[in-house]
C-alpha cells in the first residue's frame, strides 16, 4: 500500500507546481507587456475562445436543458401532494444559478476542453514542439498556456449563463406540460426568487472553475512523459483531477458562502 505521507507530499508538490505555472505564465505575460507587445497571439486566443465557448454551447445547453427538465419534473411530483408545485421555478432557478449551472458546466468543460488541452499540449511535449518553442526563446507558457487558460477562464461565466437559461427552458416546458403552469408565471416566479448574491456566487465559482480547468489541464499536458501511452494516461488523469478539484472547490465555495451570507 502506498505511504499516505508520500501521497500527500506528492499532491502538495503538484498543487505548488500548478501555482508556479500560473505565476510563471503571468510573469512571462508581464515581460511581454513591458516590451509593449501583446502577451499572446490574438488569433490563437480567438481560436481557443471559439473552441471553448462556441464549441461547448450545444453540449452545455442540451445537458442543462435535460437536467433542468428532470429536476422540475421530480421536485414537482414530490411537492404536488402538498400543493406546493408553484415552488418549482424558484427551486430550479436558485439551484441552477448558484450551484448546478457552474458545477455541471465545469464538469462538461473539464471533460471536453480539459482533455483536449492536455492531449494537445501532451502531444506537443512528446514531439519536442514545446521544447522547440522554449528553445527559440518564445516563452512556451506565454505562447501556449496563456491563451488557453484565459479563454476558458473568461468563457466559463458565459457558458454558465447558457446552462442556466437552458435549464430554465427545460423546467418551464415540463412545468407547463405536467403542472399546467403558464410560462409567464414560471418566468416571474423564477426572477422573483433570484437574489444578486446567487448570481454573483455562480459567476465567481465559474471563473474559479475556469482557472482550475485551464491550469490543471495545461500543467498535465506540459508534464507528459512516455510517448503516446503517456499522453493517454495524462489525459485521463487530467480529466479526473480537474473534475475532482472542481467539485472540491465547489463544496469549499458553498461552505464559505453559507457561512458568510446564509446565517
Amino acid at each position, binding site marked *: 500500500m502506498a505511504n499516505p505521507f508520500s501521497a500527500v507530499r506528492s499532491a502538495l508538490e503538484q498543487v505548488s507546481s500548478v501555482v508556479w505555472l500560473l505565476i*510563471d505564465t503571468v*510573469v*512571462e505575460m508581464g*515581460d511581454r507587456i513591458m516590451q509593449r507587445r501583446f502577451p499572446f*497571439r490574438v488569433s490563437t486566443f480567438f481560436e481557443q475562445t471559439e473552441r471553448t465557448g462556441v464549441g461547448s454551447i450545444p453540449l452545455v445547453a442540451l445537458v442543462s436543458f435535460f437536467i433542468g427538465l428532470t429536476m422540475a419534473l421530480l421536485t414537482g411530483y414530490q411537492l404536488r401532494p402538498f400543493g406546493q408545485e408553484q415552488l418549482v421555478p424558484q427551486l430550479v432557478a436558485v439551484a441552477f444559478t448558484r450551484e448546478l449551472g457552474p458545477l455541471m458546466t465545469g464538469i462538461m468543460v473539464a471533460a471536453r476542453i480539459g482533455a483536449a488541452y492536455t492531449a494537445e499540449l501532451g*502531444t*506537443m511535449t512528446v*514531439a*519536442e*514542439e514545446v*521544447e*522547440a*518553442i*522554449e*528553445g*527559440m*526563446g*518564445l*516563452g512556451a507558457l506565454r*505562447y501556449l498556456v496563456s491563451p488557453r487558460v484565459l479563454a476558458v477562464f473568461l468563457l466559463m461565466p458565459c457558458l454558465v449563463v447558457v446552462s442556466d437559461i437552458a435549464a430554465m427552458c427545460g423546467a418551464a416546458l415540463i412545468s407547463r406540460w405536467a403542472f399546467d403552469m403558464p410560462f409567464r408565471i414560471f418566468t416571474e416566479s423564477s426572477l422573483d426568487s433570484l437574489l444578486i448574491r446567487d448570481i454573483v456566487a455562480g459567476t465567481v465559482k465559474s471563473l474559479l472553475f475556469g482557472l482550475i480547468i485551464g491550469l490543471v489541464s495545461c500543467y498535465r499536458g506540459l508534464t507528459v512523459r512516455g510517448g503516446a501511452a503517456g499522453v493517454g494516461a495524462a489525459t485521463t488523469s487530467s480529466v479526473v483531477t480537474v473534475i475532482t478539484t472542481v467539485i472540491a472547490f465547489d463544496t469549499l465555495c458553498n461552505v464559505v458562502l453559507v457561512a458568510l451570507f446564509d446565517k
Partner: protein
Amino acid sequence: MSAEPPPVVELRDVHLAFGETKVLGGVNLCVTERARLTVLGQSGSGKSTLLRLILGILRPTAGTVFFKGRDVTKMSRRRLNRIRQKIGMVYQYSALISSLNVRDNLALPLEELTRMTPAEIDRKVDEKLEMVGMSEVRDRMPSELSGGMRKRIGLARGIIMDPELILYDEPGAGLDPVITSVIDELIVSLSEKIGATSIIVTHEMGSAFRIATRMAMLYRGEIIAEETAEDFKNSSHPVVAQFISGDTKGPILEHTASA
C-alpha cells in the same frame, strides 16, 4: 593590447543527475568562435543532454555553463529567453510545430521576437528556404514532408534568427546515407555562410568527420578527448579508437557488460 574574446560555449565541471541516475560527471568543454565541434558518444551517453544544458532547458546539478562569458545556469527565464534568441537548435526529429505550415514555422520566431514587417518576414523566410533548397514546400504542412525535408526545414528554422551558435541533435538520425551527406554538406555550408559556431551531437562517424573542425568524445559522463578532427582520427585513446573502428573488442563493451 585587446583582451581575448571569451569562448562561445564553455562548460566547467558540469554534473547532472536525474534522481539516482548520474548522466554527466564533470564535463569540461570549450568551444571557440566559428568552430564546428562534433560531440561523439554511445547512445544514451548524455550527448543530447549536453545541448539542452547549453540552451538552458536543463540546469546542471553542479558546475557552470557559459555562453559568451555569461553563466546560463544562474539566469532568470527572462534573460535566458534573450540568450536563446542567439542560439539555433536543430532537433533530432525536427520538432516542427505540427499545426503550422512550413512558412509559419519559420516565421514564428520572427513574428514573435522581432518588429519586422510581414513583407520583411516573407523575404527572410524565402531566403532561408532557398539556402536549404526547400523553396517549393513553403505552404506545405509538416505532416506532408519526408524525413529529409523536415530535417532541412528544421535547419532553416534553426538559422532563421541568424544565430551565433547552432546546436544540432543527431542531424542524420533516421535518414538514408545520401540524404545524410546532403544534410552534412548543408551544415558545413550554412555555418560558413552565416559565420556561426556549431555543436553537432552524433554517433555516426562518417557525418562527424565530414562536418567537424574539432571533435570530442563523451564517455561515462565525461569528455575523454577533445581535439582536431585529424588528431581525433589518429587518437591512441583505446575508447576513441574502438568507437572510430566500431570494433566489438575493447573497453566500451567491457564496461557496458560489467555495468
